[in-house]
């Protein structure tokens, strides 16, 4: 099945194309509202559409659950993804590489920048406790981790980075409004470019649920990590990028 390039959604039979969606319409619940829900589903390519559930939410809104068959085909050969282009390392392996190649600890400074007060992402990657069964970067003996927490301004981050001689900057953006996460990322990468000569600039990594991996260049960072990324992946990447990327000059032992 997996070698087929053209697929449809799977309900209970290959090729049946069945999907399920839910949405709310700003209409009081009546027959007309249900008809409107079916019309929307049809326009979404769901045909036939089965409005299986409709419920009034207050006098002015109705919530729907719709099942039906979509007429779209998915061409898997056209899907673009960034495959992991670095080997996964255990904390021990990562530490060993740092120890033998750098002869000092790799300095990682992390923060949530802007008004974002949600440290859940940066904490999941940095705190010893970690995430998804993997220990955070603080657990890596050869990493020196500075977690600046939430609501850190870009100038604060840059100055702390210089003070600590940071090798890697990790920035998280979790809850932001409008496109603030993009603007914050751009401000951050521009500030680092300004504050450092190109060959001395720390590795810039940004993460958060609203980013896409492909955005790295556009944001001016070295790598983007999205929802579900684990500390092990981040650690493996930064060791790989720091030592294996021949373009990068090492800062040398401090």
């Amino acid at each position, binding site marked *: 099945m997996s070698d087929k390039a053209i697929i449809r959604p799977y309900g209970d039979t290959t090729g049946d194309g069945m999907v399920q969606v839910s949405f*709310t319409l700003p209409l009081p619940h009546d027959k007309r509202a249900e008809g409107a829900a079916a019309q929307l589903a049809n326009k979404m390519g769901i045909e036939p559409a089965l409005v299986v559930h409709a419920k009034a939410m207050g006098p002015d*809104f109705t919530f729907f659950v719709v099942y039906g068959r979509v007429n779209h085909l998915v061409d898997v050969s056209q899907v673009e993804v960034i495959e992991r282009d670095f080997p996964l390392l255990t904390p021990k392996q990562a530490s060993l590489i740092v120890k033998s190649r750098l002869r000092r600890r790799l300095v990682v400074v992390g923060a949530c920048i802007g*008004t974002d*007060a949600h*440290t859940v992402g940066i904490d999941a990657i940095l705190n010893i406790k970690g995430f998804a069964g993997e220990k955070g970067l603080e657990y890596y003996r050869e990493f020196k981790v500075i*977690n600046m927490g939430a*609501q850190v301004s870009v100038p604060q981050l840059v100055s702390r980075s210089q003070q600590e001689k940071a090798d890697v900057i990790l920035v998280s953006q979790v809850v*932001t409004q409008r496109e603030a996460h993009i603007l914050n990322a751009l401000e951050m990468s521009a500030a680092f470019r300004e504050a450092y000569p190109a060959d001395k600039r720390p590795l810039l990594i940004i993460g958060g649920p609203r980013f896409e991996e492909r955005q790295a260049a556009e944001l001016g960072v070295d790598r983007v990590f999205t929802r579900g990324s684990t500390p092990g992946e981040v650690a493996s990447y930064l060791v790989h990028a720091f030592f294996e990327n021949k373009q990068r000059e090492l800062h040398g032992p401090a």
Partner: protein
Amino acid sequence: MKARSRPRLDVDIRTVKKARALAKRAGRPIVQMAKQHTTVSVERATLRLAGLSGADPDGTPWANRLLDAVRADTGLEHGICLPVWDALLRQDTRDLNRLAQLAAVGQVRFRIPEGRDAARAQAAARKPVAAGIRKIDSRRKERDRLIKRWGDPQQRPWIYLIVATGDIYEDMPQAQAAARGGADIIAVIRSTGQSLLDYVPEGATREGFAGTYATQENFRLMRAALDETSKELGRYVRLTNYASGLCMPEIAALAGLERLDMMLNDSMYGILFRDINPIRTFVDQRFSRQVHARAGIIINTGEDNYLTTADAVEAAHTVTVSQLLNEFFAKEAGLEDWQLGLGHAFEIDPAIPDSFRLELAHALLARTLFPDAPLKWMPPTRHMTGDVFGGYLLDGFFNLAGVMTDQDILLVGMMTEAVVTPWLSDRDLALQNVRYVVNAAGRLAEDFVPRPDGFIAQRCNQVLGESIDLLEQILNHDSGLLDAIADGTFGLMKRPADAGRGLEGVAKKANDYYNPAIALLDEKPAA
């Protein structure tokens, strides 16, 4: 609170007494320290109680303008009252706003009055501050009257829902809709940056970041909207906001003046999770709690935060320790048991075996330790993954644990937690979940009696034991709690007393420090 049978565990009374005694020993030096200091926000709150309001054309509140001018002339250590009312007497005006305007353009010089001048300034200050506190007293009586007229929610737990659009005029109809949908308490989430602002924004606001600014006008508007809906529903709908961050004393005062009903107000949250200076926080805390006590406001503490940043099983005892400390600090500031919305949360990894039993154990421990406090039960966030179906089930178990252990305030969990800010349909589905569980389980709490030697009882005793160990560890530090906070005893966060945000706004009180608000708040309100 109605007298009724609460589920509880047989824990050793002596152990509980010991835990409370340790919390008291850890907290007492902090209270002493708090009494010896003042902060810019405590002084500004005093000005606001005395009637100063509004902002200059740039939006800087007059309270800030006046305080900054006074501080430049006389420092902070004598308090704001002596220099301000001395200046008012000399200017022959009683209008604080006028004085603030003059001070802002450098037309007033402030001094610390002495002798008879000082006595006159004290007397002059006391009067308007007392009037402000009387206004808080009258808002409290008004609340009591409206609750009598419209009634309390029929069921426990009370259902607590969050509204947060950034625009107060959008928040109002959403809050009213939520109340009609079954919410007993509306919390207006604050704009994320506000905790680190050293001023309270002014007026009705229509833009915020993931929340709406806490301002006096926003408080007034939302309370009025909920009064309208309370009347329509025949049920008093409570309003919650946040007395936290750098301005917590001022926000507490505004909450009292505008009849807010609950305030998030934790003794250590700002220190640990916002990196606000520990001394600043403890001084601001004490004042804001005194105001809340006087205003009849129920505080909500933030123990859920310990579990969102650390493992909920390993860190269970940090919740208990924080609850005990919050209880001590609250009672010392005059809050009564019915005002202690001590927090805890359902944050154990659902993948571990017996996770629900562990949740029940932790929730029951809080219920047992604080039988008369309106405990606040907070929903899963950490293990809400974007799988909205799994999340809906988890929220159902959260609701069930809340009903079984007789929690009083239930913050409604959203299946789209960590995905989007709640949609209309998310809220509706979440309320259906709560209603089903509350209705289906009924008074299950009365039947829920865990075996005395069973898993739940043992786990309770274990967590209580670990709490005592942690409190003892805190007391083993040279200067107790402050040192413990400094060296990362709570989570991994190291917060030394001489660092953190807002430190520049703290001063040690001079011998002639005078602030009538603190003394007045210590008195009992006239019945």
